[in-house]
């Protein structure tokens, strides 16, 4: 492991390692905990930003005032609980260590990496660590949001502290039980061994090591050079469950009485129910138990989802207009153009030349393979929700407000998620399921149809990026970027409803988005006077962050301009980047992909390499791709598919400071590359009169097997900072940019609209909007293979 800046060390040799404070909690078996973040000061800040006069009466749906459902005193009380802000580990008499992680696992691998951290510091086999997902814990305030690739950054040290305290307590208990001096004891693989050879397992010690009172304990952490598990490649702890079908997602849970439920949704975005003509007839359909009008459409409940689909299709509903009925791609583009912020750099000397480009990034879908779904059981005095939620506290508080219940009466269970990509930051299905369960007076298992998930689910907003860079005498003098976007909904806040409400305020929201933009966008190059600004328009769409938020679009634009600057200044794209990069870690990853990918090798006509870099989440990632844009490849025929240019090779080098699980990190990079390929080449939503045309995975062209590079190499750089950075979103931006740069070089055409196929004729026939969802085919037997 790295020999500098590792956690738990001071800078000077000979000085003792840093001491951390944690707790032994009162419990029947050993239970330890550590402080989790610095949120205690947060309540005053958040509440001060909410005006007493209440929320504005704009057309945006507003949540109730916070004080109606959860006031400052509730918060302060919760924050003062002995367990507030603690992340805790419990030792069982069976020798297992259990951590209820206050985060959502949606495929990014945090349960595995967290288990590795516990196992490392506790000296326990990885197989004896259990990671569960904590229910919503309102007292955690800001500390139960899964986003920004932040989980390991924020939990690495607290988990280690808790585990180190547990190990210390186990050693103490063993010293007493074995009557041996503690400094003669060692720990390994969940066993304490004395110099005499006497042994006790952690399971045998779990009760004796417990405390009858909650006690503060100080502890030093294992030296990083002694790590034997952190930093080694480990398979996912849930892989066996995944490959055997035992892994349970929300729709796999057996909740008593929770029958399938679906919603008949309007034909345009955010349309409303005016009237239902045949509610009785639909109620009489086979299997159907309930039909209810709700705020987002008409809900049905039945014995099977298949019968719910039949019922949704049979409903005759008169719909009111939606919020974007007159909007199409072209009108939104015009809105964006009108809202673009001006460039500010003053006139430059005569010899200065400029690269000036404007890019368009179309609407994209963050729909996961698991559609929006949730189980809800709402009673008169309480409610229970099961869903994959990255902001479960906001969900809990919003649902409590909707139902008119105290927050404490709403239990929100966080379930393993079938992908997120930004979707699970929001809780649309959980909220809707609660509304339906209340309306019907019965538990429901609500699932969105795929077609609704694309058309009425949240989207990554359309945006434009205007870039002007000036250069003279071998130097880049200025770099200006004006990103203009349909508003991104950040009302999941920072995981807590008061910040969520701030994001709903028109003024506060602009500040919030700009803050996120400014906190995430970095220009890794020394380009002189650099300004990157965001402006937003149009809140009529249901939007949300998509994996890596603004970065894929912003950085794709920037890296294309970098290639243009390099060409204008007669430099090689790799050498040009290298000479302008600010950070040695950036240079190291760029050099690695250039070397491993044989940058500059002779390529056949119609094919080319592209190279790009991205800095975020305390890390650096570089991508080198090769693309084949020859007619033979572009015109490949696969039924109901978009083939197009094919990325044939991708080489990635990633430095996250400290890769807790290199195998998991590689998996996230691989996924990011597949996303980047799709964003540049194939996947977007087409908006026509308030309707997204895409309604299935054969319409929305996310990367499929026929688009996948056959040659993929991912290099995880050795530890640099000793502290883990972010991983889940990190691979997307550089991949998107590298593919775009390669496409430009292979075709000789500079792409300015993304994906590059967006303006081609639609590659599919759009599904009808009434009824809103298509019937399932019946020809399955004939397609067997």
């Amino acid at each position: 492991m790295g020999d500098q800046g590792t956690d738990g060390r001071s800078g000077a040799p000979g000085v003792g390692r840093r001491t951390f404070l944690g707790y032994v909690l009162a419990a029947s078996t050993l239970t330890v905990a550590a402080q989790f973040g610095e949120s205690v000061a947060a309540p005053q800040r958040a509440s001060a930003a909410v005006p007493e006069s209440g929320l504005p009466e704009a057309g945006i749906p507003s949540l109730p005032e916070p004080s109606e459902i959860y006031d400052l005193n509730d918060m302060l009380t919760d924050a003062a609980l002995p367990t507030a802000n603690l992340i805790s580990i419990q030792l069982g008499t069976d020798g297992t260590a259990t951590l209820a992680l206050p985060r959502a696992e949606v495929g990014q691998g945090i349960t595995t990496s967290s288990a590795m951290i516990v196992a490392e510091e506790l000296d326990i086999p990885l197989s004896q660590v259990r990671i569960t997902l904590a229910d919503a814990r309102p007292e955690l305030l800001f500390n139960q949001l899964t986003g920004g690739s932040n989980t390991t950054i924020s939990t690495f040290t607290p988990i280690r502290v808790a585990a180190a305290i547990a190990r210390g307590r186990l050693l103490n208990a063993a010293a007493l039980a074995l009557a041996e001096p503690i400094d003669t004891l060692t720990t390994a693989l969940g066993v304490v061994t004395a110099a005499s050879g006497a042994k006790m397992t952690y399971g045998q010690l779990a009760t004796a090591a417990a405390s009858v009172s909650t006690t503060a304990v100080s502890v030093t952490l294992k030296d990083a050079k002694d790590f034997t598990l952190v930093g080694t490649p480990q398979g996912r702890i849930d892989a066996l469950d995944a490959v055997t079908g035992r892994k349970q997602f929300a729709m796999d849970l057996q909740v008593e009485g929770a029958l399938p439920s679906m919603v008949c949704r309007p034909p345009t975005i955010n349309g409303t129910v005016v009237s239902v003509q045949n509610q009785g007839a639909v109620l009489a359909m086979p299997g159907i138990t309930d039909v209810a009008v709700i705020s987002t459409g008409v809900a049905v409940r039945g014995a099977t989802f298949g019968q719910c689909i039949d019922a949704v299709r049979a409903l005759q509903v008169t719909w009111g207009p939606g919020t974007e009925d007159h909007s199409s791609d072209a009108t939104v583009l015009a809105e964006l153009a009108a809202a673009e912020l001006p460039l500010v750099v003053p006139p430059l000397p005569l010899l200065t030349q400029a690269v000036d480009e404007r890019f368009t990034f179309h609407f994209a879908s963050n729909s996961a393979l698991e559609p929006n779904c949730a189980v809800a059981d709402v009673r008169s005095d309480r409610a229970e929700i099961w869903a994959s939620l990255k902001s479960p506290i906001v969900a809990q508080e919003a649902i409590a407000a909707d139902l008119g219940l105290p927050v404490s009466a709403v239990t929100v269970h966080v379930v393993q998620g079938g992908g997120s990509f930004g979707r699970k930051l929001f809780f649309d299905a959980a909220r809707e399921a609660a509304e339906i369960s209340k309306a019907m007076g019965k538990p429901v298992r609500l699932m969105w149809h795929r077609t609704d998930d694309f058309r009425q689910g949240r989207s990554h907003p359309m945006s434009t990026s205007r870039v002007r860079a000036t250069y003279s005498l071998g130097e880049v003098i200025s770099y200006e970027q004006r990103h203009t976007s349909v508003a991104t909904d950040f009302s999941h806040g920072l995981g807590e409803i008061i910040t969520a409400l701030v994001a709903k305020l028109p003024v506060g929201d602009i500040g919030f988005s700009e803050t996120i933009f400014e906190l995430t966008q970095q220009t890794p190059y020394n380009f002189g006077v650099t300004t990157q600004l965001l402006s937003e328009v149009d809140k009529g769409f249901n939007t949300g962050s998509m994996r890596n938020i603004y970065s894929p679009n912003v950085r794709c634009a920037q890296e294309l301009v970098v290639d243009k600057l390099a060409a204008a200044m007669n430099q090689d794209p790799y050498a040009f980047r290298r000479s302008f990069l600010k950070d040695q870690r950036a240079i190291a990853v760029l050099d690695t992909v250039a070397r491993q990918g044989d940058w500059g090798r002779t390529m056949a006509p119609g094919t080319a390499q592209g190279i790009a870099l991205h800095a975020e989440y305390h890390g650096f990632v570089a991508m080198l791709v090769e693309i084949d844009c020859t007619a033979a490849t572009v015109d490949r025929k696969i039924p109901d598919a978009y083939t197009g240019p094919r990325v044939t090779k991708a080489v990635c080098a990633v430095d996250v400071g400290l890769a807790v699980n290199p195998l998991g990190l590689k998996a996230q990079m691989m996924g990011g590359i597949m996303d980047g390929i799709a964003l540049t080449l194939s996947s977007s939503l087409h908006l026509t009169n308030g309707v997204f045309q895409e309604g299935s995975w054969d319409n929305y062209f996310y990367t499929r097997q026929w688009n996948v590079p056959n040659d993929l190499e991912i290099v995880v750089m050795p530890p640099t900072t000793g502290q883990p950075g972010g991983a889940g979103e990190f691979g997307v931006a550089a991949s998107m940019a590298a593919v775009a740069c390669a496409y430009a070089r292979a075709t000789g055409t500079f792409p300015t609209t993304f994906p590059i196929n967006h303006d081609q004729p639609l590659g599919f026939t759009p599904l009808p909007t009434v009824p809103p969802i298509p019937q399932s085919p019946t020809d399955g037997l004939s397609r067997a293979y």
Partner: protein
Amino acid sequence: MPQHTFVLNGKQVTVDVEDDVRLLWVLRDILGVRGPKYGCGLGVCQACTSHLNGKAVNLCCIPVSDVASTDEVTTIEGLPATVGKDLHPMQEAWLEMDVPQCGYCQPGQIMAAVAKVLEARAAGHEIGDADFDEIRNICRCGTYVRIREAILSAADKF
């Protein structure tokens, strides 16, 4: 209500349900077999891929009335029928390559992979790029490369 009988993961089952209800819902909602996943209900995403008499099918596209009492439906839960083993070699390869991320599509991917290998074998060729191009299963996490590696690794092990 009509009765339907078929063999599910080696055991004969009988359900009372309307003829047109697709097998996916018969399994998931009535019989509680939830390995096969819903991803679209359109025969597109292939998340519900299972086997009918040893061939890969999309359960969302088969009305229950299409199956006869002797038809054998095998889901991921019934796959590891290899004698003396808990897992099918394809599942073992999946673990070896650490393929899953969120895992939602993986039962369907594995069922498709097994069928694709058997199809190539029956056609007398080794599984290759042309076969991969025919695997339509969506993986929104983008595990495709490891899927290929796992299939190639397991192809000669069953």
